[in-house]
């Protein structure tokens, strides 16, 4: 069963159609990198896959669940790291993780997760004072917290130092062969290094790169 299956997917903002109807499959255990020019709609595609945005038309199945018809059932099967790493300014990384684990109904040791993502020093600081890289790490930790069948990463290497980038690669390696991952990237060389398959999004749809 694929982690993600999109067929004839369309998205329109007002009169503007983002792409011709597109098809995309991410198999369970596969890591797919999505390349594309700025503004072509990579983030929108990830948000649709995460049920954070509704497609105008087409089929969307996440881990066997029809995500267009039953988004509430599909949502727990997806982890999304949005591009801007949005966090609550008043809450600390430790509180974000504890909250997210409770929402997923999983028992997680926030301290261990924070150490894994290199956030031990920032664990109890309000998110408002974190650096962009630290916020990105928290967003990655939240997205991967329940080890979801489908992980969606929007420019996961942005703002990360070398250690952070290594942690993302370790996360991808740990999922390979087990769970599906789709990530939007700009750097084609990096995409070819970390992904099993690289595809390109343009106005005509998704094509092998």
């Amino acid at each position, binding site marked *: 069963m694929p982690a993600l299956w999109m067929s004839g997917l369309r998205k329109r*903002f007002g009169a503007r159609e983002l792409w011709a109807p597109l098809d995309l499959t991410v198999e369970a255990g596969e890591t797919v990198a999505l390349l594309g020019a700025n503004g072509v709609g990579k983030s929108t595609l990830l*948000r649709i896959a*995460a*049920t*954070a*945005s*509704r497609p105008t038309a087409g089929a969307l199945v996440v881990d066997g669940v029809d995500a267009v018809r039953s988004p*509430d059932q599909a*949502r*727990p099967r*997806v*982890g*999304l790291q*949005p591009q*801007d790493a*949005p*966090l*609550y*300014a*008043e*809450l600390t990384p430790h*509180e974000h993780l504890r*909250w*997210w684990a*409770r*929402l*997923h*109904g999983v028992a997680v040791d926030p301290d261990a997760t924070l150490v894994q993502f290199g956030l031990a020093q920032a664990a109890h600081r*309000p998110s408002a004072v974190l650096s962009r890289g630290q916020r990105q790490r928290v967003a990655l930790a*939240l*997205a991967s917290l*329940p080890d979801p069948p489908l992980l969606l990463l929007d420019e996961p290497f942005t703002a990360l130092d070398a250690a952070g980038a290594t942690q993302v690669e370790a996360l991808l390696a740990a999922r390979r062969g087990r769970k599906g991952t789709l990530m939007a990237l700009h750097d084609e060389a990096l995409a070819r290094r970390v992904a099993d398959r690289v595809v390109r999004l343009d106005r005509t749809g998704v094509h092998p790169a």
Partner: protein
Amino acid sequence: MSDGRFRALLWKDARRELRGKESIAAGVVLVLLFYVLDLFAFPTLAGAPRTAAAVLWTPLLYAAGALAGRAWAAEADRGTLELLRAAPVPLLSHGLSRWVVNLVITLALALVGFVAGGALFALPVTVEVALPLALGAVGLSILASLAAALAAQARSRDVLLPILLVPLAAPLLQAGIAATLSALAGLPLSEARAPLLVLAAYDLVALGVSLVLWPILLEGE
């Protein structure tokens, strides 16, 4: 959704308010500023029940709108609506959680106004005066939360919120003021039965409508 997950949402929303303290502090200051202004305008409210009703209800209407508007604007501006949309719970539960926290703060502000009315204008501090204000706070917090969530992502949200809120709240305000006038005239609750029933029914209908609207309002573009 399980109780544990809803409690987690409530915990997050309450924690943000308690840690930030901005909404509570701004709400209390707003209510008290209205009363200070009223002190200059109306040295006494004896024999002026309609003015007294306006003194009690105006800060409540403003505070409910400002509280909800601020909360949802912060979600939109900081991008955390994206976080909510990616959370593994139905979208409805985010709206309900935010409303419950807003309701508690709005009720607290109604209490501040109620006490200030008694202290500064010698208005009766009775159940007959408090009940319409409490029922009004429930309905206003629902309407304000819905209107604020709808307006949050609009460029002109500061204009849009009152334009949406005040007409929707008109029947509630009319019934609330009628019940308050009855209380200020020293009549028992039974004499204000009709407007109180309208207030309670309005609250229930508003809550029912909100259950349908929250998932639509919170769904991303």
